C-alpha cells in the first residue's frame, strides 16, 4: 500500500466526530507506519503503548479461549484508545474523546484495517 493509501484510510477514521487522531502501527516493534494526529498527541508513544498492550491482550485472550482480537477499546475518564489488529503485524489505532461513538470508530478502523491488508 502507498503512503497516499494509508493517509486516505486514516483520514476516514479521523473524520468521525470525537477522534483526535489515528495511526497505523507495526505491532511487532511498536513503530509508526503512518499517522494522522491532532497536535499534542505523541505518535511514537501511542504506537509503542498500543502495540505493547495489544501484545499482552492477545496472549490473555488466547489463554481465555476467545480467539484472536478483532477490536479492542481502552476507556479512560478523559479519552479512549481504540484498536483493530490488521494482517501481517499491523494495528490500526485511534485516540478519541471519552464520548466518541465507539461503533462508528470501530467501523472505520475495520475498513482501514481491511485496506492495509
Amino acid at each position, binding site marked *: 500500500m502507498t503512503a497516499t493509501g494509508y493517509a486516505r484510510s486514516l483520514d476516514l477514521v479521523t473524520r468521525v466526530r470525537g477522534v483526535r487522531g489515528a495511526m497505523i502501527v507495526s505491532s511487532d516493534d511498536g513503530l509508526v507506519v503512518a499517522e494522522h494526529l491532532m497536535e499534542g498527541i505523541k505518535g511514537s508513544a501511542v504506537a509503542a*503503548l498500543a502495540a505493547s498492550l495489544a501484545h499482552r491482550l492477545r496472549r*490473555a485472550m488466547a489463554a481465555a479461549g*476467545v480467539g484472536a482480537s478483532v477490536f479492542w477499546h481502552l476507556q479512560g475518564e*478523559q479519552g479512549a*484508545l481504540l484498536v483493530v489488529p490488521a494482517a501481517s503485524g499491523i494495528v490500526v489505532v485511534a485516540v478519541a474523546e471519552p464520548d466518541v461513538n465507539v461503533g462508528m470508530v470501530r467501523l472505520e478502523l475495520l475498513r482501514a484495517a481491511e485496506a492495509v491488508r
Partner: protein
Amino acid sequence: MADEIKTLSAELARDPHSLVFLRLGDLLRQRGQLDAAHRVALNGLERHPHSADAHDLYARILADKRDYERAFDEWDMARRIAPGHMGALKGLAFLYFKVGDVAQAVAHLEEAERVAPDDFTIQQALAMVRGQPMGSAAARPAAHAALRPGSPAPPPPPPMAEEPMAPPAGPLEDRRVFAGLEGAQEGLLLLDAAGRVLGGALRDWNGADVTEAVAAYLAGVSLEAGRTAKLLGLGTWTGLAAEGQLGHVHLAQPGPDALLLVVRDRSVPMGRLAIIAQRAAIAARRWLEQQA
C-alpha cells in the same frame, strides 16, 4: 501405609477396573500426594462414572487442593447418585458451613444423622454447628474438628466417609464473590494486583479450567492499560473491552488493586457485556469492602 499403597497400585495395574482405586486414591490423599491421588481418582471416575464413592473421593482430593467449587459439584453429584451417601452429606455440610450457610449445613448433617444415627461425629458436628453463630471464626475450628477423623467413635465407614475434608478456612468464601451472578463459575474472574485469583472462575469453550493461565496474563494487561491511559492523557482507565473471534471480554477495576474480567461468547453483544461487567463490579466492590 506405603506397603499398602504399593500393593493397591499393583492390584490396580493388574485390573484397571478394580475398585481398589478408591482406597488407593484416599491413601495417597492422606499422605499429601495430591497429584497422584488426583490421577488415580480421575482414572477411576472414567471407569466408574456412576460410583458415588468415586465422586466422593474426587471431591475430597479437590477439597484438599482448595478447589472448593469443584469439590462441591462432585459431592453434589455423589449425593444425586446415592442420596444417603455419608461422605457427600458431610462434605456438603462442611462446605455450607464454611460459607456461613448454617441452615444448609445443619440440614445436611441432620440427613446424615438419619442415615447413621449412631455416628457420634455427626452428633458432635451438629452440636457445634448449632451452637455457634453463622460461620464465626470460633465455630469453624470446632465444627471442623468434629467432622475430622480421629473424633471419638468414628463409624465403620465406606472407604472415604470418615473425613470429609481437611482444608483451612478461607478461600471458599472468596470464590463466592459473584454468587448469584450469571456465569459466576465460568465467565467471571476477580484478581488482585499481582494476578492472584480472589474469586470467580473461567472456563474455555471446551469446559477446561483456564482461570490461572488467564490470571497470569491479566496482571500484565492491567499494568499496561494503566500505564497507557496515564501516558496518553486518558485519565484513569475505567474499562477495556475486547472483541475476539470466538468471544468477548471486558476488564474493569472494581478497586484500586483489583481487576475484574468478564468473558462471554460472541452471542452476547459488547454493550450487554459492559452492563454485566458493571453489575459484577458492584458485587466485587462490595465484597472487597467487606474484606478490608
